[in-house]
């Protein structure tokens, strides 16, 4: 065989080997790339599971145990709180009822009525619209208490469900699956993240070695070709090596093909593991979505708690406002009663004043009358002495006039 043939053969084999290896290498490259994307997906998966865990504990320990159990059920709706409210409402209801019935019993003596009809009572002068408002609130109380009881039991069952979800069922399962199927100690994880890359590296290296040894042979054949005409001695010593290598080429190609089929098998082997993992990941993802749905459902429940909580606090606030109103009303009626008593005293005082005024007038009238009688006597004496000598028109109509010098007119209010 001459050098030209050896070169041709070597080139042919090299091209064939390169094509084969390229194909395999690109398969390995793609596989590795996909695997690294997959690892990032797993990272996200772990991330979101961590979030689910914290969300579960936030729901359980903060929202439920603190926000609802302590703040609402214990502090806002506690038995003591409501009992206190009820007893205060009762106290003020009793007080106002009592006060109104006092007003019911007091006649208004200042109004004159036709005989046969009763005097109006003081209570006739007030509005009774709001007097029973606390009683009405108290009647609503059992409904509210029932609502609280029902929400308490709803809370208990929700707490139980969340605890189960978080600690035992869904979330626990997710964590266990993660640990079991994707944890660092899981054989598949080690296979895909350590064994597989190592083996692929080794296979790539092996393929590269094949190419480099075939390339080396090809280079030798080219060298042989150059020696053919110039350096017979070198040619002969190289020829032996090259023909030997040339004879081994079919054998090398066979083992290269074996290696390539090993690559195929290896990739297939890992692909199988990976496919299994993909399936497991899908199941895990379904559970994660399920947990997310559960969390969303709990949000709806929380909304109900919030609505009822608003309802109850509105009720409580209006109770407190009503108590305040009744307190004011009570004070007002109390003042009304006292002011009525003061009014009666005032009427007496005014009557007394009228009486005093009347006495003064009587006294005055008596004095005036006496003076007037004295005056008439004096006029009579005057006329007797002078009447005949005075012409009538010297003081027209006055000289012999005997009408009194005064006229007393007065008015004193009759109370």
């Amino acid at each position, binding site marked *: 065989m001459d050098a030209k043939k050896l070169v041709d053969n070597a080139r042919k084999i090299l091209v064939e080997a390169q094509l084969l290896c390229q194909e395999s290498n690109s398969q390995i490259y793609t596989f590795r790339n996909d695997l690294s994307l997959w690892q990032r997906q797993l990272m996200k998966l772990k991330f979101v599971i961590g979030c689910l865990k*914290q*969300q579960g504990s936030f729901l359980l320990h903060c929202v439920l145990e603190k*926000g609802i159990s302590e703040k609402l059920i214990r502090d806002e709706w506690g038995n003591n709180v409501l009992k206190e409210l009820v007893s205060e409402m009762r106290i003020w209801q009793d007080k106002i009822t009592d006060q109104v019935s006092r007003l019911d019993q007091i006649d208004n003596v200042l109004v004159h009525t036709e005989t046969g009809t009763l005097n109006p009572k003081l209570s006739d002068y007030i509005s009774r619209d709001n007097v029973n408002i606390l009683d009405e609130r108290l009647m609503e109380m059992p409904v509210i208490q029932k609502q609280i009881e029902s929400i308490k039991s709803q809370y208990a069952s929700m707490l139980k469900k969340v605890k189960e979800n978080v600690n035992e069922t869904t979330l626990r399962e997710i964590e266990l699956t993660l640990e079991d199927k994707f944890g660092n100690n899981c054989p598949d994880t080690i296979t895909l993240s350590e064994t597989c890359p190592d083996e692929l590296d080794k296979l790539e290296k092996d393929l590269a070695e094949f190419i480099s040894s075939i390339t080396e042979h090809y280079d030798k054949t080219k060298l042989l070709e150059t020696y053919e005409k110039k350096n017979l001695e070198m040619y002969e010593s190289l020829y032996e090596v090259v023909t030997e290598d040339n004879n081994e080429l079919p054998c090398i190609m066979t083992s290269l093909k074996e290696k390539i089929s090993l690559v195929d098998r290896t990739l297939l082997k890992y692909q199988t593991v990976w496919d299994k993992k993909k399936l497991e990941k899908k199941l895990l993802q379904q559970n*994660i979505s399920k947990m*997310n749905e559960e969390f*969303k459902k709990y*949000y709806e429940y929380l909304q109900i708690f919030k609505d009822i909580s608003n309802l109850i606090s509105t009720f409580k606030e209006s109770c407190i406002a009503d108590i305040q109103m009744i307190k004011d009303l009570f004070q007002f009626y109390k003042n009304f009663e006292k002011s009525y008593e003061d009014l009666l005293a005032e009427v007496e005082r005014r009557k007394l004043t009228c009486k005093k005024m009347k006495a003064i007038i009587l006294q005055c009238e008596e004095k005036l009358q006496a003076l007037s009688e004295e005056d008439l006597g004096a006029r009579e004496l005057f006329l007797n002495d002078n009447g005949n000598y005075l012409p009538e028109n010297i003081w027209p109509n006055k000289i012999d006039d005997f009408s009194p010098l005064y006229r007393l007119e007065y008015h004193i209010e009759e109370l």
Partner: protein
Amino acid sequence: MESNATTNTIGNLTLIVREKNIYHTIVKDKESQYSSSSNPECATDVTFPTNIKYIFEDDEEHEKVIGLDTTSLGSSKDTIENVIVVQLDENGAFEDVDLISENYILLDVIKSEDTVDENKNISRNHDIELQVLSKFRDLSPIANDLPLDDMISLYRIQNEQIETICNSL
């Protein structure tokens, strides 16, 4: 490029990372209770990434790899743990951004681009805000004394964030 009548250059690239963990919302609300004026410089949820490396895969494509300075986002390690990859095309137009991190998840990207044309030299300015989420934390130390309404709305936000991540899986 110089043979062309116009040249394209990449203008300013402003990258903001905003952390959407509700932890920051709670802390901020608490702070604003005590101080009347909010101080944006003290914001714990916004950071400008530093430690920038440029990778030119070839002349046509530019990638910037930016290590997120994690110290301002609560991590004490000095080593780069979070990598932001910004991909631009040969004209400097924004193509893609990605975050590779174990500690943060990219929720959303808000981007705006304006082109400045000076003497036929087109440069593009990019404003990119990455909305990222750090791992949920144990909120009980700071959230226990919040009103129930606030707790419930924080709970809802976290549900939405979980859903966003689930949808990207």
